[in-house]
């Protein structure tokens, strides 16, 4: 970006906002907004505490488990829906319903089903992430050009070979896009799940800090989460771009 002929670095707007935040914080307008500098120093302090480290460990564990489950279930289910009409008819309505449903409302029910612990959070992550993964995998498989499949057949490929060498690879960009959006939704899932369960991981910390009006730490934790979600998304996007490059001609 350029302004009056000067190059403005990418993070400039962030710096500007941090500056405004700092000024508002220093003015002591409202206790909700402590100065940015004290939030950052609280952040460094927070990272060093045992409670943050163990909370992070629990959070990452729930997230990884839930996502692994969502990918392991979502990708094959989406592919099956794209390939077989009957599977599509059975699951189509449910997947479309859940993909736009406010899933947070289901978490209390999950708490009854799975107890106030990590299992509920894992299931929440799974439910947040899985539907979009299913839908994108399905879309990817369905838009494989028919002539590519005919090409495989005309050169003598078996059904299995056509599936592994043509359909899967052709659908890969969409499958990865689904996983990326699934990851972002999964981050929401892990936070919402933990906050509602509120006795484990970051949920416990959020609960603790907001009750004790420890706004520095509260904001520090929020920012760490935001940064982690963005970083995760960027990593997948980078990987996705390389795949898109190969599939760029579609």
């Amino acid at each position, binding site marked *: 970006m350029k302004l009056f002929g000067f190059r403005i670095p990418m993070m400039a707007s962030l710096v500007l906002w941090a500056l405004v935040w700092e000024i508002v914080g220093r003015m002591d307008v409202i206790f909700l907004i402590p100065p940015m500098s004290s939030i950052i120093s609280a952040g460094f302090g927070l990272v060093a505490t045992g409670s943050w480290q163990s909370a992070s460990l629990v959070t990452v564990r729930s997230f990884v488990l839930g996502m692994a489950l969502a990918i392991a279930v979502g990708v094959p289910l989406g592919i099956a829906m794209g390939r077989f009409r009957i599977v599509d008819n059975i699951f189509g309505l449910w997947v479309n319903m859940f993909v736009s449903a406010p899933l947070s409302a289901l978490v209390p029910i999950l708490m009854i089903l799975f107890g106030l612990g990590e299992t509920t959070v894992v299931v929440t992550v799974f439910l947040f992430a899985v539907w979009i993964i299913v839908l994108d995998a399905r879309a990817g498989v369905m838009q494989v*050009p028919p*002539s*590519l499949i*005919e*090409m*495989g*057949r*005309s*050169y*003598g*490929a078996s059904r299995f*070979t056509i599936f592994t*060498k*043509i359909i899967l*690879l*052709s659908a*890969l960009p969409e499958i990865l896009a689904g996983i990326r959006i699934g990851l972002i939704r999964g981050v929401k899932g892990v936070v919402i799940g933990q906050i509602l369960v509120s006795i484990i991981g970051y949920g416990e910390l959020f609960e603790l800090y907001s009750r004790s009006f420890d706004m520095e730490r509260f904001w520090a934790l929020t920012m760490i989460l935001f940064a982690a979600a963005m970083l995760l998304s960027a990593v997948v996007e980078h990987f996705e771009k390389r*795949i898109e*490059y*190969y*599939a*760029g*001609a*579609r």
Partner: protein
Amino acid sequence: MANPRLAPTAHPSGAASPDVIVEVRDICKHYNDVEALRDINLDFERGKLTTLLGPSGCGKTTLLKIIAGLVPATSGQIRINGKTVTGPGPERAFVFQDFALMPWATVLRNVAFGLELKGVPQAERNRTARHYIREVGLSGFEEKYPHELSGGMRQRVGIARAFSVNADVLLLDEPFSAVDEQNRRKFQEDLLQLVEKERKTFLFVTHSIEEAVYVSDRIVLLSPRPGRVSQIIEPAIDRSAAPDVIRRDKSYLDVVEEIWQGLRQYAE
């Protein structure tokens, strides 16, 4: 038929002569209630380039795909080298209208893909693929991806792939329809050279009369709805002449005119 160089032949039927490679017998095709093809009987001679020509909706692509074994016929038989076939086989190779290249694979891998599916070891299939990449004029593009090539170059990849599997019969479904006009002409000239060099049987589908007359030994005119063989024309054109001479040749222009007169009744 005033022009003696046009030699319309009767619908071939009965016993096939020894050098007939593809026999089409009583082929009918229905799509639900729509009759796409009715009683098609054709023989294709070894080493010749035959064009299926007709207005859109005459079922020419359907007929080609039935011969390829990609689409089942409602009734009738296809015989290749005297044997009845029901599906795709190694003696036929198909060139697709939309190229059907794998966007994630390099030119080399795309060209070698037919051999890869046959289980040919990598070193050997790459050698064959490189040979045909050179033949179609794409040397230096082996490691490029399809989206880095123009439409004409992409179809050259499709043709190199079809040559690589060393099939007896090459089936080309409107191979140049997605290629722009200048490249199309160059491509037609190159195709004739390849036909000369490779000595294979070509079945070519097009809706361009000029293209058909320019490249074909024999033109099968199909009439639409349902598709039937309406006329067979053998343009006796001296192909040893330069391309530009051929395109101004009297007999070439006469055949084009003759076919247009046959087809104009179907034009809206």
